[in-house]
């Protein structure tokens, strides 16, 4: 049986982690590679790097980051942020990234998913979807949840799957930052509707939220940032609790 995956997410800008990190044993909390190494030693199953560098040098910065991570880390990782074309993806793959995550670029140009899947295989293509409810509808948002689109979330995810998405990273902007738990209702709907792995994101506040999301929705993985960065949840504790709840994890 596949283990449920626990994925810390690191926001990176100009080669440095941007969200505050509160590990006591880090020499340099701003160094994404050291942070990543620390997480992999704690038992993280995978890492996601979200690069928000906005300069013209961004591709070069991302490639350098990916290379340093691939040199040091022995678990898979995904890189996302501003990947707009095949050439971006190609450079990141050759630098050692296992997967790339595409968000806005895919919504604006859905054919990009077909092209990436054809060029690199579906396993390389993670489609990140930021969703927020408007009335009784779940709507895809861009720009970190600020910009609503005309796409409904489930319909967009099914289109992405049919075009060649290998995995869905679904972030509920309604839950993100609340620490009140994942959006289990929507996650279950999506997970039941697709045949590709789903990563739950947004809302993790305590260990029980991870137990809930796996038990209630059967998603493949759960991602969080601040609860890990601030040491509020330690991955070994989290995995022991999951195991105690008969959820298959890698320990």
């Amino acid at each position, binding site marked *: *049986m*596949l*283990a449920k*995956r626990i994925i810390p997410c690191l926001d990176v800008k100009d080669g440095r982690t941007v969200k505050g990190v509160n590990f006591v044993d880090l020499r340099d909390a701003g160094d994404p590679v050291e942070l990543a190494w620390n997480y*992999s030693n704690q038992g993280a*199953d995978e890492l996601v790097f979200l690069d928000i560098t906005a300069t013209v040098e961004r591709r070069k910065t991302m490639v350098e980051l990916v*290379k340093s991570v*691939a*040199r*040091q880390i*022995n*678990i*898979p990782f995904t890189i996302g942020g501003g990947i707009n074309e095949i050439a971006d993806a190609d450079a990141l*793959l*050759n*630098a*050692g990234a*296992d997967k790339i995550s595409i968000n806005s670029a895919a919504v604006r140009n859905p054919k990009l998913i077909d092209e990436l899947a054809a060029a*690199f*295989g*579906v*396993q390389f293509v993670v489609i990140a979807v930021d969703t927020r409810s408007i009335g009784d509808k779940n709507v895809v948002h861009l720009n970190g949840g600020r910009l609503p689109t005309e796409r409904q979330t489930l319909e967009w995810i099914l289109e992405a799957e049919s075009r060649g998405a*290998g*995995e869905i990273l679904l972030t509920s902007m309604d839950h993100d930052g609340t620490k009140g738990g994942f959006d289990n209702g929507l996650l279950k709907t999506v997970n*039941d509707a697709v*045949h*590709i*792995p789903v990563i739950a994101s947004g809302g993790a506040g305590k260990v029980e939220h991870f137990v809930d999301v796996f038990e209630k929705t059967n998603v*493949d*993985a759960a991602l969080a940032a601040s609860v890990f960065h601030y040491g509020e949840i330690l991955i070994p504790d989290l995995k022991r609790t999951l195991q105690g709840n008969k959820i298959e994890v*890698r320990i």
Partner: protein
Amino acid sequence: MIGIILYGAGNIFSLTAALERLGIPYGFINSEEDFDKYDRYIIPGVGHAGAAMNKLKATGLVPAIKALKKPTLGICVGMQLLTSHSEEGDSNLLDIIPVKTLRFKDSADHKVPHTGWNRVFPEKENPLFENIPSGSHFYFVHSYFIEYDKAYTLLAADYGNQFSASIWLDNFYGVQFHPEKSGVFGETLLTNFSKI
């Protein structure tokens, strides 16, 4: 020293990075003469097995590979190339180990590609798996699998059906998972291979 066979099927940055971290020396094989420089070989590979086989054929290295007597490890699609045939593109492969590569049937409980950490269980004693406990997790990403075969399966795993996580015949070894991405046990496996 390990010779990595280059034939253009996928990037090997993570593999060479892992070997460097582990202090295992390696070089590259581009032509038949290069084989003599090394005492063991890795056949890497990601992507489409049929396409990978065509690229391998184009290098002209196939007869030399089939005649290898030194330890040779195929990784992921590199392992599938060792088999006789893949359902992927209905492709005939190297046929070094007489087993078939088949496609997973996807279902609600078993999404395809099989992506993530799964447990592997040794079927035989082998130094490749030394110091790695039975039931350890390794990192897999694949839609096609090598059928379970009592004679050739070295490690078994389960994903809807039992399959070969590793195969072995004489000096030829294959692993379906990515040891370079499989944490400490993956690194142990690479170190073990460097000593076989």
